[in-house]
């Protein structure tokens, strides 16, 4: 009873809340980091050093008037933000945040579940999120969102191909689709997969930027061109859902990258004995630190780079990343057959 119901439910609650808080604070972090890059201070007024800014933002968005344009398709318009948000949240079900911990005499693994097709689950759920953007742009019945959602569908489909191909090469190396087994495989291989699959890692990172609509690939919301893109017509909490979904997706990409390429919750050099004093630090800390590093690079890139143009982005995806990913996959396969 306790193992079947109570523990998973508590874990779901914790993960869900941690994610939502993490997402809102991700927004603050982004504003702060970009501000420092640009020699500004960022939010300073709400709470010490702006620490309560996300709460103020959330409150503001909740009490704002929620407008549905008269000519919009009402049901789809309402459903779109939900379709965008839910997949971003349920992906966390299979992400291993840490090793097992001993709590009240029970072995509790720090993930909600470990299904044997975990990676497949992530890829399929994450691609549902695109529908939110497409539906939102379509249902607004407005020109800028429509253009943005057309861009989004083209962009996300092409980059999904590249990303999935890199995932396949990781699966080849790890020999499993389960997220936990992939981490264990890195432990027994004595090396992070980022070093075994450097090309896959780079493609995954670039594709991850494109998948989450982040700069320099933030075409669907290109504020300077499309005045906000697919969420131009949204306001209040529905806009907030799109906004949060974007950041939740960023955290998903960072977590998946950490798990697949940077050894997940493992401490650095898990097989070097004299570093074992590092085991004092709980495993989930390593996971957080690695993901945070990833997210930091996301923000850094946004502060520095100009935006690609839509056709250039497609060219990069189809002519560079996908062929590279395929070549990487084929070579991985050959090496695997010949050497192992």
């Amino acid at each position, binding site marked *: 009873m306790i193992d079947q119901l109570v523990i998973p439910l508590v874990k779901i609650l914790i993960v869900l809340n941690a994610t939502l808080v993490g997402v809102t604070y991700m927004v603050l972090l982004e504003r702060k980091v*970009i501000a420092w*890059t*640009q*020699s*500004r201070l960022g939010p300073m007024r709400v709470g010490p050093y702006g620490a309560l800014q996300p709460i103020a933002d959330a409150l503001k968005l909740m009490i704002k008037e929620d407008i549905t344009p008269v000519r919009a398709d009402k049901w789809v318009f309402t459903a779109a933000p939900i379709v965008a948000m839910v997949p971003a949240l349920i992906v966390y079900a299979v992400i291993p945040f840490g090793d097992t911990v001993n709590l009240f005499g029970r072995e509790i693994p720090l993930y909600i579940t470990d299904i044997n097709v975990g990676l497949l689950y992530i890829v399929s759920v994450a691609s549902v999120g695109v529908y939110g953007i497409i539906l939102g742009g379509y249902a607004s019945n407005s*020109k*800028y969102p429509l*253009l943005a959602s057309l*861009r989004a569908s083209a962009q996300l489909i092409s980059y999904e191909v590249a990303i999935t191909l890199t995932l396949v090469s990781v699966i080849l190396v790890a020999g499993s689709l389960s997220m936990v087994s992939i981490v264990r495989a890195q432990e027994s291989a004595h090396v992070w997969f980022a070093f075994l699959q450097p090309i896959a890692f780079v493609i995954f990172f670039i594709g991850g930027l494109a998948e989450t609509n982040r*700069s*320099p690939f*933030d075409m669907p919301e*290109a*504020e*300077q*061109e*499309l*005045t906000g893109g697919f969420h131009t017509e949204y306001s209040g909490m529905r806009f907030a859902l799109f906004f949060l979904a974007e950041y939740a997706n960023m955290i998903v990409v960072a977590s998946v990258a950490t798990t697949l390429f940077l050894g997940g919750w493992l401490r650095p050099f898990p097989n070097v004995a004299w570093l074992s004093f590092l085991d004092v630090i709980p495993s989930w800390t390593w996971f957080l630190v690695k993901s945070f590093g990833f997210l930091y690079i996301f923000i850094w890139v*946004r*502060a*520095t*780079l*100009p*935006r*690609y*143009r*839509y*056709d*250039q982005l497609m060219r990069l995806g189809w002519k560079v990343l996908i062929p590279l990913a395929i070549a990487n996959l084929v070579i991985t396969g050959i090496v695997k057959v010949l050497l192992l």
Partner: protein
Amino acid sequence: METPTVHHGAMFDTNELVLNMGPQHPSTHGVLRVVLRLDGEKVVDADVVIGYLHRGIEKLSENRNWTQIILLTDRMDYVAAATSNVGYCETVEKLMSLEVPRRARYVRTILCELQRIASHCLWVGTHAMDIGAMTVFLYAFRERELILDLFEEFCGARLTYNSMRIGGLPLDIPPGWDKKVLEFCKIMDSKIDEYETLLTHNRIWLERTRGIGVISGPEAAGLGLCGPVLRGSGVPRDVRKDEPYAAYDEMTFDVPLGTSGDTYDRYLVRMEEFRQSLRIIRQAAEGIPDGPIVGKVPRLIKPPAGETYHAIESPKGELGFFIVSDGKSTNPYRFRVRSPSFCNLQGLRRLVRGHLVADVVALIGSIDIVLGEVDR
């Protein structure tokens, strides 16, 4: 503009999309409205609609006395107000055949070039912002602030300066001001390199600007384009060199020219103009001569009957004033401004045709307009 065309015969009938960009749009630099006809994301045609900021400055000027007009010229190109002041005052001086003391001409040169840097700072910031590089915007505004501080010290205002008088300057420069200008030059030198590090060799920046909005020299001249836009196409036209005013005949500087006439060349021309401006400011600030700051100006300014046209090189191009005086009243009979932003905007329709929506904002940034000057 005609109604959108419907293309029959393909598997599906396709329809051109009319997209209204502005006047409330983050990248139209004010209240510019562009009506785009799109085929997918490709621009088939563009219609530029202006007039949202028209205040009738030219007509107003015909009902103000000659000194009051200086204040109105502030409100044209509000990011380079001192340049408009100088342009207007010199036109009236030409009409009255007034001799301006050398000291005043030197200070005018410094002010004009400081304004050019301030205006280009705003341009590089917004242009980069339109293409998605947001950090350059904040960096450029940081340096623009230093220039505004210098202006505040000189004339008390930070945006609309009213910094000129017919025949000279309203006030002498504050003691030590020229030293501060030189100090600013030293700071600015390294900051230009900073902007260039972020943009000039950035691959995304190159892809976004190279080959975008190409226009040949003769065509650009034919459209009446001026300033850095014209020089980006390789036409060596710079009023400072061709018809020197203020103290430009005593300064040594180069006029940077582009070769291919695309957005990247216009960018490079302006970046080089930053450096040339600093070069001019250094020469002028080190060599400010002593002497009076106002020439022999009659108490009541009343130019003799006649008309004149005088142009100066504003940061955006050739800023010309055409003034007719009837010789009897204390206000101009006719007042007309040839504003570079307005003339350069003529080229937008030609430039954007065949490009994508994303390039439209890049091109609006590239021709560097200020709507206050377009509409007046």
